């Protein structure tokens, strides 16, 4: 989408983040049916419909500038939100190349990349960055390559090294997490990292997902959606900052639920990286208030039903225990019982 940026909106304190009507209509609703349960819902990350969040490899939307500023604030306070183990340097350059090439190709009005052999020239107009550097030489960038480029991209990133039949989370930029911590998880295997997820291990989701990802091919990225809910449009719901956002969950009432509670959807993309044979895991976070959702009648009915029937273990794991019922009550008047059309898109 050729976004008009809203550079001043905030994801903390006064929470001025809002979605435009266009942003609401392109929101990636994860509920394809009225009932929700885990599945290995992986599909090729091929260019999708024009204007959709999957039109391009990395979606840049109206919140781009504001999200990058929020990231910088988190990193100023807590530098360990970015980490990379020493053997991940070739993967860092792979990530920088993938993101720069994608943004320059897909958003030529905002980004450009010129190459003369290993001399690269990167321009990011929305953030006012103009950087010449030598690809492969970290000393020519102001920060490590992964740090440099992911400060200019929306969403979190984890880079996984592949060895010994497993994927190891060994580099990343994580400032918009749904209650997990890179500092805690770095160095873990795929299943250790996903240890806290309930139910999925038992039904073999991670065995199958790991096997699939170990064989992920160059040039054939894949994606899936995941979701949770967050009180206030707060991107940084990290364990490190739990005291700042945990108490918010006790503030939800019948009256304010529509404005306070946000559906938080992660568009997760997975890319095989060429030089390092590592895997890039992108976690692009989209927020939408329940009131904004309810402006699409199909979605109001769909989300009401999906939340109402959610498995209790998932309610607890996603941290919705205190306010799920309140949101269901808030949405109930929008659900006249009429059927919803197939698929997740708005009518």
């Amino acid at each position: 989408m050729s976004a008009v940026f809203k550079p001043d909106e905030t994801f903390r304190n006064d929470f001025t983040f809002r979605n435009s009507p266009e942003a609401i209509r392109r929101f990636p609703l994860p509920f394809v049916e009225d009932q929700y349960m885990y599945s290995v819902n992986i599909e090729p990350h091929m260019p999708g419909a024009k204007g959709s969040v999957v039109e391009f490899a990395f979606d840049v939307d109206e919140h781009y500038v504001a999200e990058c500023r929020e990231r910088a604030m988190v990193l100023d306070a807590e530098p360990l939100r970015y980490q990379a183990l020493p053997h991940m340097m070739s993967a860092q350059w792979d990530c920088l190349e993938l993101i720069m090439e994608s943004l320059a190709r897909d958003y030529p009005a905002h980004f450009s990349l010129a190459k003369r052999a290993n001399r690269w020239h990167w321009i990011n107009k929305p953030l006012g960055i103009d950087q010449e550097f030598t690809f492969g030489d970290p000393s020519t960038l102001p920060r490590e390559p992964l740090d440099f480029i992911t400060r200019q991209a929306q969403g979190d990133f984890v880079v996984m090294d592949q060895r010994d039949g497993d994927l190891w989370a060994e580099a990343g930029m994580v400032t918009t997490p749904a209650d997990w911590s890179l500092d805690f998880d770095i160095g873990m295997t795929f299943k250790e990292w996903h240890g806290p997820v309930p139910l999925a291990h038992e039904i073999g989701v991670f065995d199958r997902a790991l096997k699939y990802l170990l064989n992920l091919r160059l040039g054939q990225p894949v994606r899936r959606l995941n979701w949770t809910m967050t009180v206030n449009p707060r991107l940084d719901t990290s364990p490190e900052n739990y005291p700042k956002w945990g108490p918010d969950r006790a503030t939800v009432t019948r009256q304010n639920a529509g404005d306070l509670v946000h559906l938080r959807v992660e568009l997760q993309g997975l890319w095989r990286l060429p030089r390092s044979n590592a895997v890039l895991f992108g976690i692009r976070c989209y927020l939408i208030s329940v009131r904004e959702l309810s402006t699409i009648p199909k979605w109001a009915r769909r989300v009401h039903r999906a939340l109402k029937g959610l498995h209790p273990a998932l309610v607890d794991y996603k941290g919705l225990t205190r306010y799920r019922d309140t949101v269901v009550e808030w949405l109930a008047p929008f659900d006249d019982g009429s059927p919803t059309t197939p698929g997740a898109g708005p009518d």
Partner: protein
Amino acid sequence: MSEAQTLEVEVTAIEQVTPLIKHFKLRPVSGDAMPAFSGGSHIVVVMRTPTRVYRNPYSLLSPPHRLDSYEIGVRRMEESRGGSHFMHDRVGVGTRLEIAHPVNLFALDKIARKHVLIAGGIGITPFMAHLEDLHEGRVPYELHYSVRGREHAAFLPRILERTGERVRMYYDSEGQSIDFDGLLSNQPLGTHVYVCGPAGMIDKVAATAREWGWPDSHIHWEQFSAPPVGDAFDVFLARSKVTVHVPPDQSLLESIEAQGVEVPYLCRGGVCGFCQTRVLELDGELIHNDHFLSDAEKAKRNTIMPCVSRARCKSLVLDL
């Protein structure tokens, strides 16, 4: 995952580097750079002839930082079903071929403290790309390269130039052989061993390393089996509801593909396990030629790797 995306390439140079091995340079027809890759990667070369299609895996031996062309080495197999003969006899400078994007099933371990590389014959090819990465790094390594005789030492000048002091040559014809016990009994903790060569060499390295207490995670090997020839047999594909005849010189996978049924694959050499297929009914014996299934799994007679394995049977029904 379905059929890999393919790139159209043109052969720009061919060199006979040993009596049995030819060295090919491939450049993209589009004029773009080749996709970047990591050392140890292979490509699948698609060879279309009027009567059949071959898809053979070959390791990339060119430096990973050079992307104007890819280089592969092809050994003429004595009992070839035709793929290597096609490359040797029918492909010339200017011939156009299709290749699938690189896949790496033989990467170096990035946290190893030391690498011991063991190559036998054409098994040198994946290490050619590895040497480029190792040369630039700080991790110690050594290469042990065993060939029949001096005239069979493919790519030796390039190896010596890149890494002269770290390579040790072994010539069968001069009575030299690698002392696996000596080599594997005395390596620093954190060393990884990698072997690519004939099946006997791989088995010997793996067995010796295990005897000396190496963890499996530190033993790496790759061998692309050419699909062996065998007796003809018929197979019924239960979901597609077609009967496929597998002639002696064509693999089960190739025969199924020739009927228009798509089977997901990566290596086509019995290594990766990606084409693993369920056996629903069997009256006869499966001939497992892969390196993926354990002996216990093979004994169950309920799964097969169609890329390299065959059957000697009255009937066989697959879940395809």
